[in-house]
């Protein structure tokens, strides 16, 4: 295929071809970045919380104050365990992805000179690791004696369990078991490591910085009940549990309740909405661009009917005409893509500095280019086919 005649013909349509190139460039830049953002959101939504999510329901109450908090909460838990289908019932300080957490900075030495990273303080009543479905990968679970009192949320028991993320951050290259840090003046020692447990809200690399502690129910630890039950009976268990708590504690208020999958869905609701919005805009962008390419190509075909007829009359085949328009489109789209890549990279740089977005992976460029080439070829196919059907006799007509 000779490129020169196409180029010299394009030079006569500088403005229109330039506009089409600009349109493709902007579309390419937006598409690359939007698709990248969609994938970011989707991968965040896949986060593994470390819990047996499909089996959990939760009820948030106003808790029990005063000295009888422990016996009242323990008898509530015993009653909840009696509901058919319930495997275990515990009270915990907070749940992953609940947008509610308690955080602290540990001291890495006794005099508090060296501080560790901000992490979540997770506290739960006897057997909560097992009830939530959190998996231990090293060491052992809390013993019965570890479930003691708390002092403004700081557990009396010196035992703690950390996530693998914490172990690798604080003690890289060594076993975390037996290591210790301080909260204020209180020393805590690692007795076990769990594989995953995310915080109340996701915080990038620090999303799994969680330290787990043991405590018996108390005034602090008496408001958030979590039940593990048969996944098929979650809704019924939730209703029964709320009814039972209300019957046992007429003064208690149940602020909120739900299944864990529901809580997770709420946490990601805005990300899901944003992903949908981005996808909608991308689709609209593709359609508008395709229609623009097709529309302009139609015009050019209609404008050049005579030239096409002459070319056909002097021996060009239908295939030649078809390929002419396809090649022309390929050239314009390529120009647009080249410009678009630079633009996409610039936009990505701006987004990185303003919105903590990572760098656009290089793989997006060839994939984006391929998609736009395909789109261009599809859009031009109709007009190009019409052009190839222009009969040679047109050349001989005067109008």
């Amino acid at each position, binding site marked *: 295929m000779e490129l020169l005649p196409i180029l010299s013909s394009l030079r006569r349509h500088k*403005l*229109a071809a330039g*506009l*089409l190139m*600009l*349109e493709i460039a*902007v*579309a390419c*830049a*937006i598409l690359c970045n*939007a698709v990248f*953002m969609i994938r970011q959101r989707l991968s965040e939504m896949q986060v593994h919380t470390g819990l047996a999510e499909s089996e959990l329901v939760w009820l948030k109450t*106003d808790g029990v104050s005063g000295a009888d908090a422990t016996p009242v909460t323990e008898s509530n838990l015993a009653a909840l365990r009696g509901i058919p289908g319930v495997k275990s019932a515990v009270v915990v300080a907070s749940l992953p992805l609940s947008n509610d957490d*308690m955080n*602290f900075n540990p001291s890495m030495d006794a005099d508090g000179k060296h501080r560790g990273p901000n992490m979540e*303080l997770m506290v739960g009543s006897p057997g909560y690791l097992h009830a939530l479905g959190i998996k231990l990968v090293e060491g052992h679970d809390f013993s019965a004696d570890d479930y003691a009192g708390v*002092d*403004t*949320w*700081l557990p009396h028991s010196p035992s703690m369990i950390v996530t693998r993320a914490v172990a690798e951050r604080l003690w890289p290259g060594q076993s975390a078991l037996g290591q210790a840090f301080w909260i*204020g*003046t209180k020393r805590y020692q690692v007795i076990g490591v769990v594989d995953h447990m995310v915080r109340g809200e996701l915080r990038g690399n620090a999303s799994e910085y969680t330290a787990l502690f043991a405590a018996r129910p108390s005034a602090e630890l008496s408001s958030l009940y979590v039940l593990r039950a048969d996944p098929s009976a979650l809704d019924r268990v939730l209703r029964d549990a709320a009814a039972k708590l209300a019957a046992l504690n007429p003064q208690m*208020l149940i*602020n909120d309740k739900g299944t864990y999958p529901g809580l997770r869905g*709420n946490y990601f*609701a*805005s990300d899901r*909405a*944003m992903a949908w*919005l*981005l996808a909608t*805009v991308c689709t*609209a*962008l593709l359609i*508008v*661009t395709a*229609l*623009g390419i097709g*529309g*302009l190509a139609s*015009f*050019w075909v*209609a*404008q050049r009917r005579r030239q096409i007829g002459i070319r056909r009359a002097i021996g060009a085949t239908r295939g030649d005409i078809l390929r002419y328009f396809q090649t022309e489109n390929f050239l314009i789209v390529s120009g647009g893509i080249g410009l678009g890549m630079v633009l996409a990279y610039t936009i990505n740089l701006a*987004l990185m500095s*303003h*919105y903590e977005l990572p760098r656009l992976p290089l793989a997006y460029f060839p994939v984006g280019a391929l998609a736009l080439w395909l789109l261009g070829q599809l859009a031009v196919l109709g007009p190009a086919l019409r052009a190839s059907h222009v009969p040679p006799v047109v050349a001989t007509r005067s*109008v």
Partner: protein
Amino acid sequence: MFGYYFDLALRSLKRNKALTALMVLAIALGIGASMTTLTVLHVLSGDPLPGRSGSLYYPQIDPRESQGYLPGKTDPMDQMTWIDGMNLLQAKRADQQALMTGGSVAVQPDNSTLDPFYQTARYTTSGFFPMFGVPFEYGHGWGDAEDDAHARVAVISSQFNDKVFGGGDSTGKTLRLDGEAFRVVGVIGDWNPNPHFYDLNRKSYNENEGVFVPLSTSQDLGMIHDGSVNCWGNGGGGNTPDHNSPCVWLQFWVQLDSPSKAAAYKEFLVNYSAQQKALGRFGRPPNVQLRNVMQWLDYNMVVPDDVRLQTGLAFGFLLVCLVNTVGLMLAKFLRRAGELGVRRALGASRSALFAQLLVESGVVGLVGGMGGLLLALIGLWLVRRQPAEYAPLAHLDPVMLLITFLLALGASLLAGLLPAWRACQVTPALQLKSN
């Protein structure tokens, strides 16, 4: 002349319906998307208290230990400790001042058809109401005397009044909060500042505070604090910190009616910090900030990143739609070079041709703009159904309506300008000859 051009434009547009529809649709989609997102951005970055916000300031000081302090780089604390809040409040150096924090109270309605429920509340000193210009439907706020007496008085929102008392003048009625009897002294009228500038720790938009009680009373009764608590040193956690603990959890606002007063107040904050450091309470040299409402909102970046991103995205989309329309219009006008050549040869001036073509592109833009407005209304309706906390606020106001109109007109003229100019460059002789 205009009527004739208009007629010509309609004829030309009718000749190629699909193409006209495509151009109108492209402009409508672009304008619809950008107006939807721009309206949301406009609503979210609005002034919560127009006319007042310029003289309301949020003092920030830094009572932390010396460790970790980088001069000029470390921001002071975002809230106040109890001790500093009380000291600054009692100094009364500003025209008005109020110390406050958020909470939630258990409401036990006398009305037996209503179950007990939790209500978000604000614990504040009396300056809150006059300083923020809170309008009252019935009654009034409380005064310093009630603050000092730790009185059991409450101000309620009109929404809360409707829910618990069934509306009407409820001043003097008794309200049971956390098991204690409170006397209602005022019902607030229509007042819901957005963003919720005076406390951004819970929700930045659409916060629904139904009950206001004196800060002193809330502390006596151990009412639940709800918001952010930030401790340092040996400060323990807990949701309602001890009054002597090194934890910040209160918001302190002042009203300063002139820039010179603001400068003087900042000076006072520096002196206060220096004095506290001398006493050994503060570990750092004076590190203070005094921001007014809009500066405070900027500093906290209250407008969600997603909303900014969406606006950028929508304008990128509008650009693509516009370029698309310009390209199509250009091709269309150039194709009519023959017709234009005839008109030129018959005596029409270049400017007459230009006007004719602009009318044609203007019609496309205007119809597209109206379609865009319709799409923006649908878009805003969709936004209101989103789970975001700001969703219910997304409504088109007159300012945005005007901007939509201008944007549509500007976009269409912009889209028509280049093609019309290019098409007017035809050489009539050449066009007449070739065909």
